[in-house]
C-alpha cells in the first residue's frame, strides 16, 4: 500500500530547546505495532511472529490465532444475532460515523477520497438493510391447508472471510455478513487498513468477537478455517489463486460449509452490491403454524 505522507507523520523534530551549543533532543514519535483483533481485544500473535509491511510491524497470525478467533466469534454470535435488527443497524451506522472521523488516517494509508466516500456510504447502505432484509428475503407463504406458513431468514453463524486488500473491498465483505447477525473471522490482506478499521470497530459499539481480524498470510491460516468444524460459511472473495480456492472449497466440503466464490480480484466493489452478499449468508427457517378455529 503506497503511503502518501509517511515521512512527515513518522518523525516530528522538536522545537530547538535553547542556545545552539546545548544538545538538541529530537523527539522520537511512538510508532504503532499493528496487532490482531480478536474478541474485541488487540493481542499479538500467539506465535509471537511479526512481519514488516510498508515499514510497519504487523502481527503474523498463526492457526491458533485463527482457532481463538473462531472461539470468540462463536461466543459472540448468539448475542449479536439476538440483538434487534434496529440495534444492529444503529451499530453499523455508528461505524460509518467513526470512519468519517478517521478519514485522515485512511488517507495517510493511501486510501483515495472517493473510495473513502464509497466505504462510508456502504456502511450506511447496509445499516439501512438490517431491519428490512427479513421482509425481502422472507415472508408469508400461501399453502393449501389450515396453516400460517412463514419463512424467516436467519444468520448462518460464524463466517470465515478471506478479504480483498482494499478498504472498500474489506467493508464490502464484512458488512453484509454482520448486518444479518453473523459473526466473522476475517483474514485481511492490507494489514494497516484492516487494523485501522478494527480500531474503528472497537470503538463503535460493535460487541467484541463479532468481527475478528487476522493479518498475515491467508494461505497459511485459511485452510484451517476452511476445515474447522465450528465455522459455518466461507467467503473466498479475496483468494487470488484459483488452485488455493479450489483446495479451500474441498476442505470446506468436509463439514458442508456454505462457500462463496465471487470473481476474486476482478470484483468491482464500487458497483451496487445488490442483496446477494447478504442473502448468501442467510438460512431460511420456515414455520408451519396451525390456524385456530
Amino acid at each position, binding site marked *: 500500500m503506497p503511503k502518501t505522507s509517511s515521512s512527515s507523520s513518522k518523525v516530528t523534530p522538536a522545537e530547538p530547546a535553547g542556545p545552539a551549543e546545548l544538545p538538541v533532543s529530537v523527539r522520537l514519535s511512538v510508532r504503532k505495532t499493528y496487532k490482531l483483533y480478536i474478541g474485541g481485544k488487540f493481542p499479538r500473535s500467539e506465535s509471537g511472529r511479526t512481519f514488516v509491511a510498508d515499514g510497519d510491524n504487523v502481527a503474523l497470525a498463526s492457526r491458533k490465532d485463527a482457532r481463538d478467533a473462531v472461539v470468540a466469534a462463536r461466543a459472540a454470535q448468539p448475542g449479536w444475532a439476538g440483538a434487534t435488527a434496529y440495534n444492529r443497524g444503529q451499530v453499523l451506522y455508528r461505524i460509518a460515523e467513526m470512519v468519517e472521523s478517521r478519514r485522515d488516517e485512511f488517507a495517510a494509508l493511501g486510501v483515495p477520497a472517493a473510495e473513502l466516500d464509497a466505504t462510508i456510504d456502504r456502511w450506511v447502505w447496509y445499516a439501512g438493510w438490517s431491519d428490512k432484509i427479513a421482509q425481502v428475503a422472507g415472508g408469508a407463504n400461501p399453502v393449501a391447508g389450515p396453516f400460517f406458513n412463514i419463512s424467516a431468514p436467519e444468520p448462518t453463524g460464524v463466517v470465515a472471510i478471506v478479504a480483498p486488500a482494499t478498504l472498500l473491498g474489506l467493508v464490502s465483505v464484512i458488512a453484509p455478513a454482520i448486518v444479518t447477525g453473523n459473526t466473522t473471522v476475517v483474514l485481511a490482506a492490507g494489514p494497516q487498513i484492516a487494523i485501522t478499521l478494527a480500531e474503528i470497530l472497537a470503538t463503535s459499539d460493535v460487541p467484541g468477537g463479532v468481527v475478528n481480524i487476522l493479518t498475515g498470510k491467508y494461505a497459511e491460516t485459511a485452510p*484451517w478455517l476452511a476445515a*474447522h*468444524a465450528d465455522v459455518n460459511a466461507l467467503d473466498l472473495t479475496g483468494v487470488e489463486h484459483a488452485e488455493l480456492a479450489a483446495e479451500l472449497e474441498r476442505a470446506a466440503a468436509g463439514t458442508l460449509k456454505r462457500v462463496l466464490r465471487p470473481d476474486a480480484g476482478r470484483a468491482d466493489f464500487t458497483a451496487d452490491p445488490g442483496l446477494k452478499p447478504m442473502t448468501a449468508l442467510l438460512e431460511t427457517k420456515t414455520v408451519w403454524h396451525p390456524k385456530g378455529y
Partner: protein
Amino acid sequence: MTATAPIGLSDLRSYLHGLPGVDKVGVEARAAALGTRSVKTSSKAKAIDLAIRMVDLTTLEGADTPGKVRALCAKGRRPDPADPSVPSVAAICVYPAMVPVAAAALAGSGVHLASVATAFPSGQAPLEVKLADTRAAVAAGADEVDMVISRGAFLAGDYARVFDEIVAVKEACGSAHLKVILETGELATYDNVRRASWLAMLAGADFIKTSTGKVAVNATLPITLVMLEAVRDFRAKFGRQIGVKPAGGIKNTKDAIKYLVLINETVGDDWLDPAWFRFGASSLLNDLLMQRTKLTTGHYSGPDYFTLD
C-alpha cells in the same frame, strides 16, 4: 483401617499444627512453572486419553432428571459414539436421589458410580442425617461416596469432630470408596489445606478432593500441588496410598494436561492412573473430545458435534 488412626486423638491437634507450613510464594511459583510445559502430538494424544479415563463425569444440579442422568451415563460409557476407540470415563457422579437411575444405566459397563453424600455441598447437617445419606447412596448402588467435611468445625479448630465424622462415614460406606471433599476454597490458607488433607487421610479417606464446585474458588494448581505433596508424604510415612481429585473449574484440555504434569513431577507415575487421580468435571470432557478429534482428523472440531451434557 478406618478406626485405627496411626495417632491418638489427643495429639491430633498438635500433630496437624506440627506439620511444616506451606511456602505460599514457592508453591504458586512451582505450580505456575509446571503449567508452562508443552505437551504435543503423540504425548498429547496419550495425555488426552488418560485424562478422559480419569474424568468423574458430574451432574449436581437441582434440575437433574432421570433422563438427564441416563444421558450422562450413556456419554460416560461411550464419550464419542462416532469413535469406539475413545475410552470410558472413570465414574459418573450424581446426587443420592439419582443413584438408582445411574446404577441401572451403568450396569456391566465398568464405569464407577459416585454419589455425593453427607448434606452436600454445605455439610451443615447432624451426623445422623449424614450417615443415613451415605448408607442410602451405598445401598442404592454407589461404589464411591464423595463426602464433605464440616468446614465450620474445622475452621473453629474442632478437628476431633471432623475426624470422628470421617471415621463414621467411612464405616457407613462399607466397601465403597470414600472421597473426602475439603472444600479448599473455604479453608482460606494453604496451611489449612495441608492440615485438612492429613486429617482426612488419618481418618481413613481413600481419596481427598478439593472442592464441591459450588463455591467461588474451586480446584487450582497450587492447591492440588499441596494435596499431592500430602499424599506423597503420607505414603512415605504410613505406607498407604491415597488418591487425589481436583474438582470444579477445570474446563479444558490445557488445564487437564497441566494437572497431569503436576502429578508426574510431584508424586510420579504411581498416581497417573484413574484409580489414584480423578478430575471432577462436566464441561472438560467435551473439550477433551474436541482436542482428540482435532488430533485424529487433523482439523479443528466444534461443540456442535458433541452432546451438551
